[in-house]
């Protein structure tokens, strides 16, 4: 390689390197905005930074048994893409009654085909508010609860009372 070419190549490499590092650091500017926006692949990595209260509201799918007991149904019955992705979709679905009913029917059909949920007679889309510490001390009673949609599982032998 000619000396001149080497110097030019080194300069180009240096400029490219600085540009990459500046681009990675650029999202720091989001902290100066009133409502920072996250992005991909350049992010200001806001995870773990929000102020959290003592309670947490979660929208989830609940399988209710004939005796009134309940079990949380896994997100995979509702959709694919990972738990957090489905969790956000459930939250959005809960705001639209027609979509919530449709989702409950789909989940009920899927649950009816799984022996693990033989005892489940009804599927509900629920937003429950739970005390964070309380949950991990064994208190699983919600502080507040909204049932967005409900569907009985239509299988002979299962009796939704």
């Amino acid at each position, binding site marked *: 390689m000619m000396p001149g070419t080497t110097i030019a190549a080194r300069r180009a490499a240096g400029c490219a390197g600085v540009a*990459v590092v500046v681009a*990675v650091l650029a*999202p720091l500017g989001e902290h100066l905005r009133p409502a920072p926006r996250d992005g*991909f*692949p350049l*992010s200001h990595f806001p*995870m773990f930074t*929000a102020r*959290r209260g003592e309670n947490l509201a979660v929208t989830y799918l609940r399988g209710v048994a004939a005796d009134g007991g309940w079990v949380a149904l896994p997100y995979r019955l509702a959709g694919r893409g990972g738990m957090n992705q489905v969790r956000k*979709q459930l939250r959005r679905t809960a705001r639209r009654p027609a979509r919530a009913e449709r989702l409950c029917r789909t989940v009920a059909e899927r649950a009816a085909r799984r022996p693990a949920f033989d005892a489940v007679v009804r599927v509900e889309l629920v937003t429950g508010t739970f005390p964070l510490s309380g949950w991990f001390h064994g208190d699983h009673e919600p502080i507040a609860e909204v049932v967005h949609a409900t569907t009985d599982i239509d299988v002979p032998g299962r009796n939704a009372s």
Partner: protein
Amino acid sequence: MLLSTLAYRNSWGMIFHNDNLLVLHAAILAGAPAADARSLDTRRRGAPAEASWRYGWPVRLLSATTVATYFVAGIAKVAGPLGWGWAGGASLRSQVLADGLRKELLGDGASPLTHRLHDVDWLWRLLAVGSLAVELGAPVALLSPRIGRLWATSAWGMHVGIKAIMGITFRYQLSGIAFASFLDLERAGMRHRAVVTGNACSTTRVPVGHS
């Protein structure tokens, strides 16, 4: 291809932060002569690539990018609503418990460690201070190779802790590949070849960034 595939996935619902560094590193390697040592083309040519500054700067840039992402994550914690109070550990504990509760209601349940450690306040304080030290202290990893290796080990350990307590898998980071640029892997390869060929003479490291 990688960027478009992952950007598509991140366009629905939420942004997954475990892929950011992978995409950035792939972009750097794509612009670097990364296939001069081992590739089908090199095998056809027969002659190994000569030592050159061209192979040093991408390694340095990979390290600088890694450090920058962790530093940005550290700034986000102290620039957030809690400020330096984040180091107290209460926020970290709340975040982990919130994640655990969601997994209890939607997924496969919180990790056993979340159940066992949720009341150990001093541990959350220690983990919060440790996380901030790794993230805000990341730039010192560029000062010397030894500090770089120490930091890379700490950052990897942080991801092992996240996996153990929260069950969140940062595959790229946990595999160690994300931190490979901080290690003298080429020296290990040279030592291995010396042992295999019976040539026990010491190997010399070509200073990175010099021809």
